[in-house]
């Protein structure tokens, strides 16, 4: 399941509803991304996330489908927020459930790595020097490349 929304989410409630009633699940992993108050040594007072409505949902669905092809998942969830956020706010939740922990850990790691290089979101940071678009990081490309099939 994927959701793109402005509103915050309740991690506990989301994880509970993801696994409720499915007793084949033995492991549930999650990753929560938060807004930092510093980036490249500069203080950040706010972050605005722009996205491409339509393509965002399409890309997230394709990334989730790919994770389900690669690992035996019983449930998966991606929630990504957009709009104006402040330091400490939650940005993204990725969760994966499986019979065993290896699939759950690996699929969750794969999803956040791929999401960072494929989902059409752009971060605008509010800094003392004014608003600045965040540049993409080659380390994110490297992280995603680890999951490329040889």
């Amino acid at each position, binding site marked *: 399941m994927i959701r793109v929304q402005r509103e915050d989410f309740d991690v506990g409630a989301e994880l509970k509803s993801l696994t409720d009633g499915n007793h084949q699940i033995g492991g549930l992993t999650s990753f929560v991304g938060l807004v930092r108050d510093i980036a490249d040594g500069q203080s950040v007072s706010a972050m605005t996330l722009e996205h*491409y409505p339509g393509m965002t949902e*399409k890309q997230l669905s394709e990334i989730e489908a790919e994770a389900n092809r690669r690992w035996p998942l019983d449930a998966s969830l991606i929630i990504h927020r957009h709009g104006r956020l402040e330091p400490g706010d939650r940005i*993204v939740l990725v969760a994966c459930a499986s019979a065993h922990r290896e699939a759950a850990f690996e699929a969750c790691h794969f999803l956040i790595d791929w999401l*960072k290089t494929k*989902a*059409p*979101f752009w971060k605008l940071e509010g800094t003392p020097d004014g608003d600045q678009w965040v540049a*993409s990081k080659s380390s994110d490309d490297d992280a995603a490349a680890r999951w490329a099939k040889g």
Partner: protein
Amino acid sequence: MKLLYFAWVRTKTGTGEETVSPPDSVRDVAGLIEWLKRRGSGAADAFADPSLIRVAVNQDYVELDHPVIAGDEIAFFPPVTGG
């Protein structure tokens, strides 16, 4: 065809969305970018370094040699920074 611009590509072109009808000689993404650059200073600035631009046609990532036709939704944006 419908053009969409996001993030700093949007701020440089000065618009988030426009509908255009390029001449028949514009057959692919690269040709469309060249045509847009000749139309105005904002686009010329936005597309000054094509290596910084990512392109989606009908919401799928494509390369510069991908064909474009009337009715396509074509989006131009910087490398993504979500997550």
